[in-house]
């Protein structure tokens, strides 16, 4: 063991689905930290090497290559090349490879070798390779590659000690560049390396080699030398032009060179004792799960199960959270002196935090199912099944999962879009995800459909209310596809989306890993979204309660009347029962009075003023000042409209099943006696909620994920425009057709 492991930086690299996370967990225990790399939202997972607290293990994103095409690949390359701000080049790189699939896995290892970093190859899952009929001579492989090779079965902790030993005694940097360059490049490349070394003496020879190759293959990599090393830049340009003239693709020649070298060294190392086309368990499972008929059916059933879980299994937990927050509110009321501070704490802060926490059960469940789908390998199959459909609107199968997640909540949906290889696909997916009807719209759908849509049957067997609910979901989904198509057609022109996806073998998921990731992801959601909702509910509370309205003469008179009527009621009450009845009547009257007092307050508060100011704009959609005020508050979070309407209609604690609120809405009249809510107004409002982006958290997450305010701003504008336009068409069209 070396004298000091302090400051040692160990980077874990490797393809996706090779057990990298398992190795990382073994090396660090559970003492890991998840953060973001500066400026991007690729997770930077790191932790101390257990037993050596000063040595840091960094888990790089799983990638197939170090030649940057996706965000993940860019990060992995920049990290290993020491290009990331605040990140030192790692002292040793562990490349985890799948023993059953050595050629493609070692392809990336050759790229790491070329960077001139000490490398250890962790030959993982040797057990499955043996089952597949492959015998690998690890020591012969180590000799051929010139780096230590540690056979492992990480899932059973086999090989862990040997790996730790190798990490703590890092090997010298391997000899780079042993694969053949094509002749057309070999000589000029040597010249280019020498030129770059002269212009940038701080780079090592091996780094120069890697940079030459990148500059030859990649436009972005070349462009950075324009100012850093102008002579080198010009020389690379000249060589590229010469190659193009002769129709030589250097990039392809380079990839082929690496694969050829690998197959020449692997031939004597691997022994096959089985026919490679023999059917595996994964093949047999896939014969069912991707079957022409059974595949889609199973996929839809699985979706139904997840929806069922998120929408109904989560309810008891959500009720529990709500009850908990309510008693916390009562506790705070009991402790704090009555007044503005208590109001702010209870109505603002505790209610606001409750609004976030109440979604956690749904989000935890969703992340749990998503984690299961990822870890078993089924996720790749959903992309395989759905790619054809997604292609129609210009996306690929990879967008299926983010869009599905958005039915629960757009936030995890937008976060899931990270896995997309193509940046354009990723942006489009983020931009349309909030059109999928999320769970926060459900309370609004429920309230207004129950109140205003007749409960009869359509064609004798379809419930009209259920059909209306389904129509809401359908409208949002169809619009998401239309928007994706339009974005691709008019905004993100050019680059064609393609679909090249590995279908990894099915594996038994490790429940503790699924749980751990579920907690980590939910924590990110709760902290980020929580911060926004928290501060916003304080603001909303303030806007609904200030300025303090002066006393309303009508209400003061009512109060006096109630007090006056109280005495005779007691006087005429003969028995105890009568006195109790009088008490109850008095309390009910006082409660009604307090409710009307709140209506009076909100009408004259900032929100009331805003609602009344906006009324002329909202009038063509059929909305009065109360609905307008509700919509304004709902831009913080959709479900807020129900509590706002509850406050306005003075029904105390309103929720979507509240019969009182439903009746109040139905009974509300304009001064001329027309009802405020007709079924047409309700439909117009529903349509508005289907399309409008009324969720601060979604905007905040979109800002994080796109690293710009531009996209959230565009998202908000186009969705609000859609909402207004479609509500207008529905209401005015309805009026024209004679639905009053």
């Amino acid at each position, binding site marked *: 063991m070396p004298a000091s492991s302090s400051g040692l930086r160990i980077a874990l690299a490797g393809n996706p689905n090779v057990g990298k996370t398992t190795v990382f967990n073994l090396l660090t225990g559970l003492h890991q930290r998840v953060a973001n790399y500066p400026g991007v939202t690729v997770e930077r997972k790191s932790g101390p090497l257990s037993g050596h607290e000063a040595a840091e293990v960094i888990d790089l994103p799983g990638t*197939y*290559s170090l*030649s940057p*095409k996706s965000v993940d690949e860019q990060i992995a390359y920049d990290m290993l090349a020491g290009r990331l701000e605040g990140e030192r080049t790692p002292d040793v790189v562990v490349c985890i490879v*799948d023993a*059953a*699939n050595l*050629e*493609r896995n070692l*392809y990336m290892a050759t790229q790491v070798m070329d960077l001139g970093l000490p490398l250890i190859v962790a030959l993982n899952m040797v057990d499955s390779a043996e089952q*597949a009929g*492959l015998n690998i001579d690890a020591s012969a492989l180590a000799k051929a590659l010139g780096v230590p090779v540690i056979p492992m079965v990480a899932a059973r902790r086999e090989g862990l000690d040997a790996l730790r030993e190798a990490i703590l005694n890092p090997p010298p940097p391997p000899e780079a560049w042993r694969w053949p360059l094509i002749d057309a490049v070999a000589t000029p490349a040597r010249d280019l390396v020498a030129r770059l070394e002269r212009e940038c003496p701080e780079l090592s020879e091996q780094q120069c080699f890697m940079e030459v190759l990148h500059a030859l293959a990649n436009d972005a990599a070349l462009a950075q030398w324009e100012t850093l090393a102008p002579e080198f830049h010009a020389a690379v340009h000249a060589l590229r032009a010469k190659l193009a003239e002769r*129709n030589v*693709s250097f*990039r*392809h020649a380079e*990839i*082929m060179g690496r*694969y050829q070298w690998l197959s020449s060294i692997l031939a004597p190392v691997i022994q096959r004792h089985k026919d*490679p*086309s023999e059917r595996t368990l*994964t*093949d047999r499972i*896939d014969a069912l799960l*991707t*079957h*022409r*008929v059974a*595949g*889609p059916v199973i996929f839809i059933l699985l979706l139904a199960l997840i929806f069922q879980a998120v929408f109904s299994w989560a309810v008891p937990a959500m009720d529990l959270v709500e009850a908990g927050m309510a008693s916390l509110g009562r506790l705070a009321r009991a402790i704090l002196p009555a007044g503005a501070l208590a109001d702010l704490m209870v109505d603002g802060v505790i209610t606001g935090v409750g609004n976030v926490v109440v979604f956690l059960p749904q989000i935890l469940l969703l992340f749990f199912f998503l984690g299961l789908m990822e870890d078993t390998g089924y996720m*790749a199959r959903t992309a*395989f*099944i759905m*790619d*054809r*459909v997604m*292609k129609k609107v210009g996306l690929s*199968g990879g967008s299926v999962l983010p869009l599905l997640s958005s039915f629960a909540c757009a936030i995890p949906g937008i976060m899931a879009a990270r896995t997309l*290889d193509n940046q354009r696909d990723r942006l489009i997916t983020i931009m349309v995800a909030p059109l999928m009807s999320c769970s926060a719209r459900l309370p609004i759908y429920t309230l207004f459909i129950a109140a205003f849509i007749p409960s009869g049957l359509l064609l004798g067997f379809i419930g009209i209310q259920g059909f209306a609910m389904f129509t809401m979901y359908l409208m949002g989904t169809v619009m998401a596809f239309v928007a994706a198509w339009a974005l691709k057609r008019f905004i993100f022109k050019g680059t064609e989306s*393609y*679909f*090249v*996806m*590995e*279908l*990894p*073998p099915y594996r038994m998921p490790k429940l503790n890993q699924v749980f751990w990731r579920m907690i980590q992801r939910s924590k990110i959601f709760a902290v980020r979204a929580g911060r926004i909702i928290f501060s916003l509910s304080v603001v909303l509370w303030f806007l609904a309660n200030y300025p303090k309205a002066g006393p309303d003469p009508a209400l003061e008179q009512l109060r006096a009347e109630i007090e006056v009527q109280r005495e005779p009621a007691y006087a005429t009450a003969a028995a105890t029962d009568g006195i109790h009845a009088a008490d109850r009547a008095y309390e009910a009257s006082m409660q009604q009075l307090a409710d009307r007092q709140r209506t009076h307050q909100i009408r004259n508060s900032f929100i009331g003023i805003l609602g009344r100011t906006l009324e002329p704009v909202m009038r063509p959609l059929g909305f009065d000042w109360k609905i307008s005020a509700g919509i304004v508050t709902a831009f913080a979070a959709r479900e807020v409209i129900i509590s706002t309407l509850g406050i306005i209609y003075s029904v105390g604690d309103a929720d979507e099943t509240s019969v009182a609120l439903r009746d109040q809405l139905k009974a509300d009249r304009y001064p001329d006696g027309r009802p405020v809510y007709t079924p047409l107004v309700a439909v117009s409002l529903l349509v508005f909620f289907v399309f409008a982006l009324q969720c601060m958290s979604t905007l905040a997450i979109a800002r994080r994920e796109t690293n710009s305010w531009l996209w959230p701003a565009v998202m908000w504008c186009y969705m609000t425009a859609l909402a207004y336009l479609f509500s207008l068409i529905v209401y005015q069209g309805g009026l024209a057709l004679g639905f009053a």
Partner: protein
Amino acid sequence: MTLRELRPGERGTIRGYALQNPPERLVEMGMLPGVIVEVLRLAPLGDPMDLRLHGYRLSIRLKEAGLILVEKLT
């Protein structure tokens, strides 16, 4: 012939590309001349294809499969 013309269950050896520069990702994933590819199945809606090469499974769209020249193995 091209890879997209192979039927499920058939195998072929890659001989080259129909295009000067096929997508880099395809080549990096090991779609190289000399490699044997087996078509396992098509997705339920007919596209993409599910392939086996180098002992692992890859799915690509028919459009990309049409860029890869193969020699059918019998």
